[in-house]
């Protein structure tokens, strides 16, 4: 039974692998037998991830915030398949978390959030539609957020981008069903990462305390999300597609 949760022989691309959740996913996927292609902005930090990733196969420096990169991403994925063989999975974990109060928000802030959080993932996924790119039963996982399901103060751009991810998952699941490629999302609540620590530190005490009080299970950790990713990448989730797996300690159950 345990074999269905393994990723042996599968080649998986992980974006955002430089740190935090993306790094944890890359490491756990690798420990589960996957060959992992690490993608991120920071070459030095990708090297740090590779050092703790038993099966890191390749490293790819990608700046998904680049406004010109979108249409090149499908070819990037196709090139990876040419180099490494058919891809069994993609985890789009790269993301930005803009904390901008509404009165200070500009259109460019919303565009920037969309570019990395939603557009990049969709265009990377598009690459899987190319000939000989996807292995049979490939699985694509987007990192969404509880902020794609509920609202919160001061994070409109982020909420919009994660709502887009939720819909992208559904549409792509339908598009890719004939190709036997599954598409799902993971929706974590606040996870204990450097990004979350910075975000909490920015808030006034009253606001921070209010926010923490909304989390029945407290903060999650990166391995909570990584375990969900391994499940969605593995044969154990064979019949799961078009869904968003909440990993939120009960945050959305209130």
């Amino acid at each position, binding site marked *: 039974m345990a074999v269905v949760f393994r990723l042996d022989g599968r080649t998986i691309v992980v974006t955002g692998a430089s740190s935090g959740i993306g790094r944890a996913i890359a490491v756990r996927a690798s420990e589960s037998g996957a060959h992992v292609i690490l993608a991120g902005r920071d070459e030095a930090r990708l090297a740090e991830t590779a050092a703790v990733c038993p099966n890191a196969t390749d490293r790819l420096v990608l700046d998904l915030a680049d406004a010109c990169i979108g249409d090149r991403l499908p070819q990037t994925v196709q090139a990876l398949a040419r180099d490494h063989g058919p891809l069994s999975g993609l985890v789009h974990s790269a993301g930005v978390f*803009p*904390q*901008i*109060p509404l*009165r*200070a928000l*500009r259109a460019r*802030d919303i565009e*920037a959030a969309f570019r990395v959080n939603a557009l990049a993932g969709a265009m990377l996924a598009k690459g899987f539609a190319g000939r000989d790119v996807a292995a049979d039963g490939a699985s694509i996982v987007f990192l969404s957020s509880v902020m794609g399901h509920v609202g919160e103060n*001061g994070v409109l751009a982020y909420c919009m981008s994660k709502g887009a991810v939720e819909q992208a998952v559904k549409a792509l699941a339908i598009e890719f069903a004939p190709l036997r490629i599954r598409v799902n999302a993971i929706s974590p609540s606040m996870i204990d990462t450097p990004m979350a620590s910075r975000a909490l*530190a*920015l*808030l*006034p005490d009253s*606001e921070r305390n209010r926010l923490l009080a909304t989390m029945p299970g407290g903060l999650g950790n990166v391995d909570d999300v990584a375990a969900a990713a391994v499940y969605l990448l593995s044969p154990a989730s064979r019949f799961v597609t078009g869904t968003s797996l909440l990993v939120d300690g009960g945050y959305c159950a209130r």
Partner: protein
Amino acid sequence: MTQAEFMNEIAFILDEDPNRLSGGRALDSISGFDSAGMLGLIAFFDGQLGVKINADALRAARTVDDLKAMAADKIE
């Protein structure tokens, strides 16, 4: 970014008339320099100038010129 562009951005974030915003203006005289305003400034400095600042640094700032100083060589 030019000085004028910087001042316009600060005025926008702090919800202040740019014509009333001078370098010597005291930040605590601007009603928009509150917790939301500080979050907006932090996001602006990070996203548009590539400068990481934190709430403590902002609380220590007294004037608009202090904000300019935080932008250092990012303003022409």
